[in-house]
C-alpha cells in the first residue's frame, strides 16, 4: 500500500512538472508582441511565475480532487472520519515551503526590476543623484535583453520626448526638433526617454507591447525610459480611469528604423501645426448636438454631466480622422498611408510575431 502511494505520488509529480513546464512555455503566447527589451525580461518572469503557479495549483488541487472522488461517505455511513487534529511535521513543511518560494520570487522579481532600469518616478535620482541608479547598469548582463538595454543606455538617446496627457488626448513633443504629434514615433534599438506630464487628472502611460505602465500625475514630471526593439505599430492606452471619454484616450505608437524616424521628424517639422482630430471632442459635440447620426441617437440611455474635453491638441503631425469621413487636411495623405499599416495583433497560436510586421 505504501509503495503504491509512493508510485502514485511520483507519477503525479512527474505529470505536474510536465504540465507546469508546458504552461510556462505557453505563457509567452498569452502576451502581446515583445516590442521592448524590457518586455522580454517581464515575459521571462511571467513564464516562471506561470510555471510555478501551475505546479502549486496542481499540487494543491490534486489531493483536493482525490479526496472528493475517493473519500466520500457511503449512503448509509453515519460514522465520523478519523479524529486527526494535526501533524507538526506537515504543518511546519507547508509553512516553510511557501515562505521560501515567495522570498525567492521576490528576489527574482527585484532583480528583473533592477535590470529593466526603467526609472519611473525617479526624477530626483536622474537630475540630482544619478549615481544611485548606477548599480543597476553595472550588473553583469547575461542575455540579450539586458545587453540591448545596456547598449541603448550607453548610446545617447535620439530624443527626449515630452508626453502630455489630458482629458482626453495624448501629445508627444520632440523638443530638439520642435515637433509635436498625436502619434508616438520611436527609433528602434535606441533608449527612449520620456518626460511624463498631466494637465488635469491622473492618467497612465501604458503600451502593452512594451509591458510597462506608469501613472502620469498632475504637478509632477516623471522621467521614464525604455528601449523599443521591434519595428511596428502598437497601441498606447490610458490605463488609469480619467473620466468620461477615458476609453477613447488612446494613441498609436510607431517604432521604426532610425532613418525612417529621422525622415518622419524632418517631414513633421516642416508642417504647420493644426488642431488634431480628437475622438472625445467629436463625441462630446455629437452628444450636445442631437440630430441624425449623433451620439444621442446611438445609445439607449442618455448620460449625465461631464467635464468638457480639453481643446484639441495643436500638432505638426496627426493621423487620427473622424469616423466615417474621408481623410482631409494637411496630414491626410500621410495619415492614410500609416493608418493602413496593420497594427500588430498577437496570434494566439504562436509567440513569434515577427512575421506580422
Amino acid at each position, binding site marked *: 500500500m505504501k509503495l503504491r502511494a509512493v508510485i502514485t505520488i511520483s507519477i503525479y509529480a512527474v505529470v505536474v512538472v510536465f504540465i507546469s513546464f508546458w504552461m510556462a512555455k505557453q505563457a509567452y503566447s498569452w502576451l502581446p508582441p515583445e516590442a521592448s527589451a524590457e518586455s522580454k525580461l517581464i515575459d521571462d518572469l511571467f513564464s516562471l511565475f506561470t510555471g510555478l503557479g501551475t505546479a502549486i495549483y496542481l499540487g494543491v488541487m490534486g489531493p483536493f480532487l482525490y479526496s472528493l472522488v475517493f473519500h466520500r461517505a457511503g449512503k448509509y455511513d453515519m460514522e*465520523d472520519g478519523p479524529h486527526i487534529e494535526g501533524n507538526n511535521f506537515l504543518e511546519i513543511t507547508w509553512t516553510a515551503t511557501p515562505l521560501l518560494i515567495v522570498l525567492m520570487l521576490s528576489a527574482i522579481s527585484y532583480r528583473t526590476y533592477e535590470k529593466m532600469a526603467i526609472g519611473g518616478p525617479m526624477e530626483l535620482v536622474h537630475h540630482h543623484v544619478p549615481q544611485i541608479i548606477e548599480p543597476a547598469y553595472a550588473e553583469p548582463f547575461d542575455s540579450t535583453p539586458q545587453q540591448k538595454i545596456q547598449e541603448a543606455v550607453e548610446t545617447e538617446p535620439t530624443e527626449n520626448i515630452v508626453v502630455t496627457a489630458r482629458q482626453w488626448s495624448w501629445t508627444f513633443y520632440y523638443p530638439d526638433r520642435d515637433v509635436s504629434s498625436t502619434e508616438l514615433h520611436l527609433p528602434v534599438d535606441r533608449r527612449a526617454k520620456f518626460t511624463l506630464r498631466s494637465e488635469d487628472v491622473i492618467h497612465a502611460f501604458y503600451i502593452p507591447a512594451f509591458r510597462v505602465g506608469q501613472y502620469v500625475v498632475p504637478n509632477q514630471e516623471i522621467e521614464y525610459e525604455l528601449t523599443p526593439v521591434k519595428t511596428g505599430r502598437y497601441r498606447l492606452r490610458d490605463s488609469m480611469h480619467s473620466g468620461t471619454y477615458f476609453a477613447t484616450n488612446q494613441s498609436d505608437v510607431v517604432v521604426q528604423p532610425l532613418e525612417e524616424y529621422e525622415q518622419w521628424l524632418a517631414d513633421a517639422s516642416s508642417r504647420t501645426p493644426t488642431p488634431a482630430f480628437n475622438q472625445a471632442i467629436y463625441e462630446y459635440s455629437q452628444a450636445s448636438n442631437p440630430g441624425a447620426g449623433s451620439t444621442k441617437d446611438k445609445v439607449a440611455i442618455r448620460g449625465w*454631466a461631464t467635464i468638457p474635453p480639453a481643446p484639441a491638441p495643436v500638432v505638426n503631425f496627426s493621423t487620427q480622422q473622424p469616423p466615417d469621413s474621408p481623410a482631409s487636411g494637411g496630414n491626410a495623405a500621410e495619415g492614410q498611408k500609416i493608418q493602413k499599416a496593420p497594427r500588430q495583433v498577437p496570434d494566439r497560436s504562436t509567440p513569434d510575431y515577427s512575421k506580422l510586421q
Partner: protein
Amino acid sequence: MTNISISPDEITRGQPYPGAPDNWKRFFTFSTDHKVIGIQYIVTAFFFFLVGGAMAMVIRSELLTPEADLVDRTVYNALFTLHGSLMIFFWTFPVLVGLANYLVPLMIGARDMAFPRLNAISFWMIPVAATLMLASFLVPGGPAQSGWWSYPPQSIQNPTGNIINGQVLWILSVAINGVSSIMGGVNFVTTIFRMRAPGMTWFRMPAFCWAVLAAQLIQLYGLPALTGGAIMLLLDITIGTSFFRPENGGNPVVYQHFFWFYSHPAVYVMVLPVFGMFSEVLPVHARKPLFGYRVIAVSSVVITVISGCVWVHHMFASATPPWMRMFFMVTTMLVAVPSGIKVFGWVATIWGGKIRFTTPMLFALGGISNWVFAGITGIFLGSVPIDLHVHNTYFVVGHFHYVLYGTIVMGIYAGIYHWFPKMTGRMYYEGLGKLHFALTYIGVQAIFLPMHPLGLQGMPRRVASYDPEFIYWNVIASLGGFLLGVSVLPFILNIVSSWIRGPKAGNNPWRAYGLEWLTTSPPPVENFEEIPVVVSGPYGYGKNQPLVANQARLGTIEEPATS
C-alpha cells in the same frame, strides 16, 4: 463569565423580545436581538447585491460589442462606480457582518452582542447610507463617475457646479457606512473578548470567531485612515481646500495612500470571515476535525498584521519610489504564507474524511478551489515587474473577482445554506441548492477566467469601448456574466419557499459540533436557557466526547448527536 439563568417561561422562542411580533414583521422593528439584526443585515445586503448585479448585467451588455453603443459613457462610468461601491460597501461587508452577528454570540455561548443597541444602530445606518448612494441617480449630473476608488483630482472635478452632487453623496454614504463598520468592529471585538462562555478558552473558540475577530481588528486600525482621506476629499470638493488639488500644491497620490491603507486590508475584512466559514463547513460535512486548527486560527491574526503593510502594491504604477515598490512586493507576497496554511489545512481536513456533497459543502469546496487560483494570480500581481504590465487591466479585474465572487460570494452562500436550518428551523431544497451551485460555479469561470487573457493582452479596466481585437474574450465573459445573473434565481426561489414551507430541520440536522447547534432552531430570545459550560475543543468529530458540561439544560428539545 457570569452564569445567568432565566426561567423557561421567560423565553419566547423566535421572538426578538417579549411582546415583539412573532412573525416576519419583527425584521422591520428596531430589534436589539443579534439574531434579528443578523437576518436584517443579510436580507438588506442581498437586496443591494441584486441591484449591484443588475448594474453588472448592463456593464457586461455594453461590453458585448467594442463600441460604446448601449449606454452613454457617463452612464457607463456611473454604473461601474456604483456597481463596485454597492457590492463592497452594501453587499459584501453587510452580509458578512450579518452572518457574524447571527453566529458569533451563539458560537461563543453569549446571550447577545456586547452592545445590543449599538448593534441595531450599526445596522440601520446601512439602508440609510445605501439609499443616499442610490439617491445620487436623482441629483443633477447623476451619480459619482470616478470609480469606487474616487481618486482625485478626477473625483474633485464637478461639472455641474452644484455642492450637492453625486460624488458628495457618494462620500457621505461611504462615511456613514464607515461609522457603522467602526461601531460593528467595537462591538465584535468586545463581544469576543469579554463574553465567551465559561470554559471557552481562546483555543476552544471556533475558527470562524477567530476570523471575525481578526477581520474586525482590521476595521479598527484601517477605517480611520479611509475616513480621514474621505473627509479631506469632501473638503476639497465642497469648500475648495487643496489637500489633493494639484493646481494649488496638493498631492493626489497622498489620497491613494489613505485609501489603500484601509482598502486593501478591507479585502481581508471580507475574506477572513469566509475563511472562517470554510473552516466550519468542511469539518461538519467531511466528519473530521479541522486539521491544524490552532495554526489556522492564529494565521487569521497573522493576516491581520501583515495586511497592514501591503497597501502600496496598488500603487506600484503610481508615483512611488523604487524602495517602496520593493518593500511592499515582499510584504504582499508574504500574505501567501498564512493564506496557504489555511488551504493546506482545509485539504488535510477533507483528506480521508467521509465527505457528503451537500450544497454548503459544494459551495465551500468551489470557493476554496477559486481561492487557490486567485491566490496564485495575486502573487503575480505582487511582483512589481508583472504588475507594471497588468496593473489596471482586466487581469486585475479577473483576479479580484475570483476573490470577491469566486471565493467570498461562494463562501457566503456556503454559510447561508449551512446555517439556514438554524436560522429558520427549516431545511432548504437540496436539488435547487445544487442547481444554484452548478450555475454559479460555471458562471464564475466563464466570466472571470477570460478577463485574465484580456488583461495580459492589454485591455484596460473601466473602458466603455475597446479595440476589436478584444471582442472574443469579452463575448465569452458577457455570456458568463448573464449565466451568473441567472444563477441567483434558484437561490431566491429556494430560500423564500423553504423559509415559508420547507421541511422542519430539527435542531442539528448536520449532526454538527459547535454551541450554536446545541440550542433550538431558530434559537430562543437569549439563545440558551442556561449559559453553556464548555469542556472541550470545537471540532470533536471522531472522538465521542461532550462539548459542554450542561448540555441537557441548554434549551434543546432533542439531544444533539456529537459523533
